[in-house]
């Protein structure tokens, strides 16, 4: 499978969720906010879920996606 072909859209979608880390949004909502077609966004969102960047809550058209905050830690050198 060629992942790179979706890379710009993945990047766009990732940055969108990074900027809105507390957002819960459906696929249609994401498509609307990014000004993209649902069918273009669908595989990208699925990929982001598979990459553990997004969490999918629920199923079907009403499924909601949210950004998974990465683990943050700090320690003395």
């Amino acid at each position: 499978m060629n992942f790179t072909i979706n890379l710009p859209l993945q990047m766009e979608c990732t940055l969108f969720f990074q900027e809105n880390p507390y957002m819960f949004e459906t696929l249609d909502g994401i498509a609307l906010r990014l000004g993209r077609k649902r069918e273009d966004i669908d595989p990208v969102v699925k990929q982001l879920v598979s990459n553990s960047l997004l969490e999918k809550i629920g199923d079907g058209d009403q499924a909601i996606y949210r950004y998974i905050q990465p683990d943050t830690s700090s320690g003395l050198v």
Partner: protein
Amino acid sequence: MILADQDFFQDVQDVYSDLTDLTMVITDNIGEMITNFTGNKNLLDLVYEYKSINEALCQRVKNFSKITGPVLYDALPGVKVVVCPVTVNNTNTYFIFAGMIIKKTEKDSVISYLKQELNAPAEILAEIPESSAEEIQTKIDKLKKMAAILSKQLASQKAASERSRKEASIDSFLQLIEAGNTDINTFLKTFSNSNQEVDLVGFARKTEGDQLVIEEILQSGNSSLKGSTFSTGEGLLGQVVATNKKRYWEKVYRDPRISYFSQKGIVPKSLAAVPILKGGQQCGLLFWGSSANEQLSKPTNTEGSIAASFLSIMESTLALRLKASNNLMKLTTLNEIFQVMAAVQDEKRILLILLDMSMNLIRGPFVSVILRQPLKNSLEIVSRGLTSEQIDSYSKDVSGRFSINEEDKLSTHVTGWGAAVYEIPLRYQNHSYGYLSIGCNGTDIDEEDLSFLNSLSFAGGISIHLIRSMKEESKQSSAAGVLVELVELIEPGHSLLAAKASKLIESFCESTSIPVSNRADLKDSCYLIAYPINLLKKNIGKPSVLSLIEEYHSIEENKPSIPTASIQAQLLHLVWTYIKQGEKIENLMQITAVNRSLLNEFISYLNHTNIVVKEIQLADPVSRQPEISHDLNLSKRESEVMKLVVKGLNNRDIASHLYISEHTVKNHMTNIFQKMNVTDRSQAIAKIYQSGWDFIKGL
């Protein structure tokens, strides 16, 4: 079978019939005549009833199908015929029949037999030639030569035909490639249509690991192998993949490994397979076979090899096209990421971008970004795919290596729990800010992805550097700002002079052609030179300001005879000398530490500015008048009232004009009289007129 050039065959037959004095005809390999008889027809009719000659020839061809050279047989007792095969590639393709021959020693008995048994007419019997054993052998040798000539012609005809087929095949594949058609099915159809011998053709593609899957197959019948898989080394096809060499199998139905096909009801009698390469690496194989022929012909296999070569070219072209498209996508992505990074002011956002973009690209088991926080002497780690124990373990591991890896570049490392990780430093110039760490599943990250990650890390390093530099600069600017303001309290005299110097520097820099950089530093330095340099060093980390002030002090102390300091320091020295020495241009002439062109420009600027000031004074000789209004100490409202009084308005009109009550106007008038030290309106008006009209305008 190659179709004979009948005219050529007939011509050769006619020549040799005449040469050998024999009646001749040539048949194909099933006994069908392909030439007309040449020679004595009477003799022929004598031997065969003409109607049955075809049948007789077919029977003879059948009998002599395997002969390897000329054979002499008796068409009738004592009447001999020579049959000579014409071979192509050791296969008897045509047969020359040449007769009739009667041995000299047998002539009398044969004629007697023909007379009695066949009632042959005497004139025909007289035409029968007789030959000695040597003559017969000579004739046979000539027939051999004739067969050789025909074989050679057939061989060259075959070669031409093969060449033409090959060219047609190449042409059809080229057309596909030129048309940009990259559909495997169309490709297989092109191969299959151009070759009648082949009724099975397919393409298997390498997938994950050592598995191959039949991506496309064309074969007769309903069953299909499409989608079936096999491993490298498994069965006939797997063997070709394992050895990476083409193979041809004859009578393959006898081989037990054919079960891969036969279990699906496909039973080829012959099979061939050729590996397909993409960019030098095997990516699959093309196979073809025949359910009719036990052995595939050489031209068919040659065509198959040509098809495989074109398929390799097509796959490589596709791969290159995909690579170019991917590179464009990556460049577009990088470009947009860089734009976002350039706009972001927050280190945490940079870390998130690095983290998530790496995860999107590599899809490894884990990604983390480690950032050094020098002020806190700590590391900040953001990660995905690591447990808290792994984060602890890895951060300890990394912190131990940070101090010794100042000059580090991309490297691989094995974590405490045994996972391979690529560590790409986040660097700017020779400073390392941290690492982008990408975990991998035992397989290497390919070169292009590493290059993308390197670019991403490089951009991350620059972004972090810029954010930290801006923070540092802002901190230093605010420290310098506080010190500048403090001068006013500690050294008010210096502050006044510094303000004047700063203003002069600003206006001079605006007008001069000499490039003066860091003007803000230069203006701040006018104030900061009041402080001891050690104090400044402790509180201002900005090297440009510190070095400027140090240079200035050095000029002031040493008074060098030639200019060696920077233009900024020279200008600072020049302006301060001018200000401190009473703003006299002639005092500047003794300065030696300043570049002559700078000095001349500065003096020229000062001369020009003074003239402008004088011109203003001449054009506005009563510009001092407004000061009188301050002397009168009238309020804004009182001034408005007085202006209307001068115009001759009474209290009622003034009240109406200013939207106030008449009583308020009276109050204002009382105040005005007191302030002007007059007792009534007329005295007030007189006093105003004594002050001049411009004052009235100023009201």
